[in-house]
């Protein structure tokens, strides 16, 4: 008990806004994003209407109607839905991206990707199926396969 000190004294810095700092805030953009810090764990259905920046760990599911950034060192063990994304960390789960996704050289993705525009930097690791709309042949093939399956099902039913 002799050596026990008050934690508040030991904390290395305090929040003291000075007049100078207050003036600097005027130049900063208004939009507040959701940021998951490096030593924070998030569990559950993580949803946000704005941009999300992940630097820590997320498990469950991630959903945003805007931009998702997974920073280096971050881990996502969840299915992801976003408008666009930039991955520099690790993702274990399926990604359903509306517009574009960028995998940087440090990215590790273990799951299927569904996206319009995909860019992959050399060094990025990807294990999974990539689906991109826009190839007519593939769509026809897919639809044929589906029809085939349906007819099989129908035949199965009739038999």
């Amino acid at each position, binding site marked *: 008990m002799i050596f026990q000190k008050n934690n*508040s004294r030991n904390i290395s810095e305090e929040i003291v806004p000075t007049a100078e700092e207050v003036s600097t805030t005027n130049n900063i953009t208004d939009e*507040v994003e959701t940021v998951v810090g490096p030593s924070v764990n998030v569990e559950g259905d993580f949803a*946000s209407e704005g941009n999300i920046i992940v630097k820590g760990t997320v498990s469950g599911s991630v959903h945003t109607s805007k931009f998702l950034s997974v920073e280096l060192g971050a881990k996502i063990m969840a299915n992801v839905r976003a408008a666009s994304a930039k991955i520099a960390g690790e993702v274990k789960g399926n990604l359903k991206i509306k517009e574009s996704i960028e995998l940087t050289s440090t990215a590790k993705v273990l799951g299927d990707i569904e996206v319009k525009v995909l860019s992959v930097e050399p060094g990025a690791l990807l294990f999974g199926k990539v689906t991109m709309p826009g190839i007519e042949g593939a769509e026809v093939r897919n639809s044929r396969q589906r029809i085939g399956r349906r007819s099989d099902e129908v035949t199965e039913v009739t038999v």
Partner: protein
Amino acid sequence: MYVYLYDNFLRQKKYDSVIKAMEVRLTDYGIAGKILRLNNFIDPKQIIEEEVKRGAKTIVIVGNDATFGYVLSRAATCDCVFGFLPIGSGNTIAQVLGIPEGIDSCDILSKRRKESLDVGWMNNRYFVSQLRVLPAKVKVIYDERFSVSANDKIEVVVCNLQPFFWKNDKRDKDAQMVHPQDGKLEAFLRPLTKKGWWSYKYEEPSIFPFEEMEIISNSPFTVEADGKVSKETKVKIKLAHGKIDMIVGRNRKF
């Protein structure tokens, strides 16, 4: 009818000249009114309700951020318009509201540009500027959908009107600005990690905009809401939309 609530610190001699000049300016504008002085034994809600019954339409808080938080956390439900005349040190909320310090604030008051402001609700009371949970082992649950935790202690700061400031190191000038009217409260979580034997170091903060959140812990933790300190094991924080009608300036930050 205007009623002016003066903070107790304004009794100091150094504020005499500013207050006199302000009173003259208010009389010139024809908005001078009854002056009440606050102290620790006065409940602002009670006196505001009495004055509203007597016909007061506008309650003007005269002082700094502490005065502003002290009055509005208790009187947020009162049916009147609030004004603010910032005097002295510790005035960051006034900047957000677009009210200049000192005599010029009287001009803003006379123009009566009204806006509805959101307030935070914590357990059974309101908070206007900021709520802070001192570093403790807590778990935060957002909108009953996802939970946030850290390996060691976390400091939680919920901002409504007052901006939140932090530094990654001493040279850093990083700052975040929070809007009072964006329909959400902003929670800043800063986990602490051990540095050396006894001391702790703040990690990079996490930011979560939210409408409802719960902070739970097995052991009691300290909560500071608008300067009022209490010990809790479970705190429920909600957003109350457009609870306060406030006279604001043209240069407001929202």
